[in-house]
C-alpha cells in the first residue's frame, strides 16, 4: 500500500524514475494513465441497459445476475427446445408446463444471500438491494417469457396453451420470489415454486382429467393474479429496507 505523495522526492518524481518537472504530479499522471489502461468498456447490452435504467450501476448489477449468465440461458433454451420437440411428437403441452417452473427457478436464483457472493456488501450500497432485485426479477421474467413463447410457438400448440402459461408463470415466479426472500435461500424459492406449480397442475388434472387444465382454464386466471399479487407483496415486505428505530 502506498501513502500518497510521501514516495516522491524533491523533484516530484518517484524514486528510481529520474527527475521530472516540479509542476508535474507524477502520481496524478500515473493514476490517469492507469484509469485509461484498466478502463472496462461496457458491451452494447450493458450500455443499452444503462440508458434504459438511467443507472450504469444498476445495469452492471443486472448483467451479473446468476440466472442471466450465458450458461443458465443456454440451459433454459435447451430444456424448452426439448419440450417443444416432445410437444410436437406427443401432443403433451410440455413447454407450457415447463416454462413457469423454469422462470420460477430463474427468479429465485436472481439475487440473495448465498447466490450473490457480495450480498453483504451490496446491502450497504446507495443503489438499494431491493431495486437490484426488482430489475433482475423483471429481466429474468422477460427473458423466460420470450424463450417460452418462442418454444411454445415452435411446438405448434394451440393459442390458448401458447399464451395460457403466462399468467400461471407470473404466479409461480411471484411464489418463488416470495419464498426465496422470506427463506433467504434460492433453493427454498425453487423448491416452493416448483412444488406449488406441481400441486396446481396435478390438482387441475385430477378435477378435469387434462394436464393442460392449469394453463387453459379461464376460471383460474383471477385466482392466479390475486395469488401473484399477494406473493409480490410478501416479497416486497421481506426485502423492505430496514428502517430500524432511528
Amino acid at each position: 500500500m502506498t501513502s500518497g505523495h510521501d514516495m516522491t522526492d524533491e523533484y516530484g518524481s518517484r524514486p528510481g524514475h529520474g527527475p521530472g518537472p516540479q509542476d508535474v504530479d507524477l502520481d496524478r499522471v500515473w493514476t490517469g494513465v492507469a484509469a485509461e489502461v484498466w478502463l472496462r468498456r461496457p458491451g452494447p447490452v450493458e450500455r443499452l441497459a444503462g440508458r434504459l435504467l438511467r443507472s450504469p450501476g444498476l445495469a452492471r448489477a443486472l448483467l451479473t445476475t446468476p440466472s442471466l449468465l450465458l450458461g443458465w440461458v443456454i440451459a433454459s433454451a435447451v430444456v424448452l427446445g426439448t419440450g417443444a420437440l416432445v410437444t410436437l411428437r406427443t401432443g403433451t403441452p410440455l413447454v407450457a408446463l415447463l416454462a413457469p417452473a423454469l422462470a420460477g427457478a430463474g427468479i429465485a436464483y436472481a439475487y440473495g444471500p448465498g447466490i450473490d457472493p457480495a450480498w453483504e456488501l451490496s446491502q450497504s450500497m446507495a443503489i438499494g438491494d431491493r431495486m437490484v432485485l426488482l430489475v433482475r426479477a423483471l429481466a429474468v421474467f422477460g427473458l423466460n417469457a420470450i424463450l417460452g413463447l418462442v418454444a411454445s410457438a415452435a411446438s405448434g400448440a394451440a393459442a390458448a396453451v401458447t399464451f395460457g402459461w403466462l399468467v400461471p408463470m407470473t404466479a409461480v415466479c411471484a411464489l418463488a420470489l416470495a419464498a426465496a426472500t422470506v427463506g433467504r435461500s434460492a433453493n427454498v424459492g425453487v423448491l416452493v415454486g416448483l412444488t406449488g406449480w406441481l400441486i396446481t397442475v396435478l390438482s387441475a388434472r385430477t378435477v378435469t382429467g387434462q394436464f393442460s387444465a392449469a394453463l387453459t382454464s379461464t376460471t383460474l386466471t383471477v385466482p392466479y393474479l390475486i395469488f401473484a399479487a399477494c406473493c409480490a407483496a410478501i416479497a416486497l415486505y421481506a426485502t423492505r429496507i430496514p428502517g430500524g428505530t432511528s
Partner: protein
Amino acid sequence: MNVELSELTRRFGRTEAVAGVDLEAGPGVLGLLGPNGAGKTSLLRMMATVLPPSSGTMRLLGRDPGSFGPRREIRRGLGYLPQNLGYYPGFTVAEFVEYFALLKDMPPRQVPRAVAAAIEHVGMGDKARKKLRTLSGGMLRRVGIAQAIVNEPELLLLDEPTAGLDPEQRVAFRTLLREFGQRATVIVSTHLVEDVAAACSEVTLMDAGKIVFHGTPGELIAAGTGHGVGDAPLERGYTAVLAAARS
C-alpha cells in the same frame, strides 16, 4: 460528529448482541476491540446500514438512516469492509472495485480515475487486471479495502481489515488508516492491539454487547499499569479492563 449512537441495541432472538451502546465519533481513527462475540461486528453492520437496530437511535454523517433519502446519502459517503468479503471469482480487481463504485452511485465519469487511485492506494496496481480467483487471501483483503475507499468515504467501517495481511502490508495499511483519519471517521474492528496502538487516536473496548472502555490508547495502557496479563502495555490494559468489567 459523523457517528452518534444512543442506547443502540440489537437482539437476535433471545441473544442481545449489542446492549445499549452510546458512542460518538468524529474524524479520526477509532479502534473497536473486544473478544469474540463481544458485538463488534453487529455494531459495525448497524453503522453500515446493513442491519437495523432493535432499539435506540443512530445518526450517521448527520443524517437519520431510518428513512430512504437520508440513508441513500449516508451510503454514498460510506465505505464498508465486511468481515467476510464475498467476491465474484471471474471479476478482475479493477472490475470488482468499479462495480462497487457504480453501486455507490458515483458519477460515472469519475469512476475510472477513482478506481485506479483506490487500487494504487492499496498497492494492487500490478494485479489490477488479474481475476479475483487467482489472488491470495491477503490480496483479496486489500481489494476489499480498495472498494471501501473508492468513493473517498466520510465514514469508513472496516471489520478485521488486517486479517491475512503480512507485517509489511499491515504497516502500510496503518499509514493509510492515519491518512484517512485526517479527513474521515474510520472505525476499525480488530483483534490486533498493535494495530490500535499504531493507528488509532481513540479506542473502544466492547464485551458482552456493551462498551466497557472508551478513551485514547494511552488511557487504555494506563488502565493496565501494575496489573493485567499480556506482553504489550496495550494488551495489559485490554485484559485489565475486561477483567474489571467481568468482576
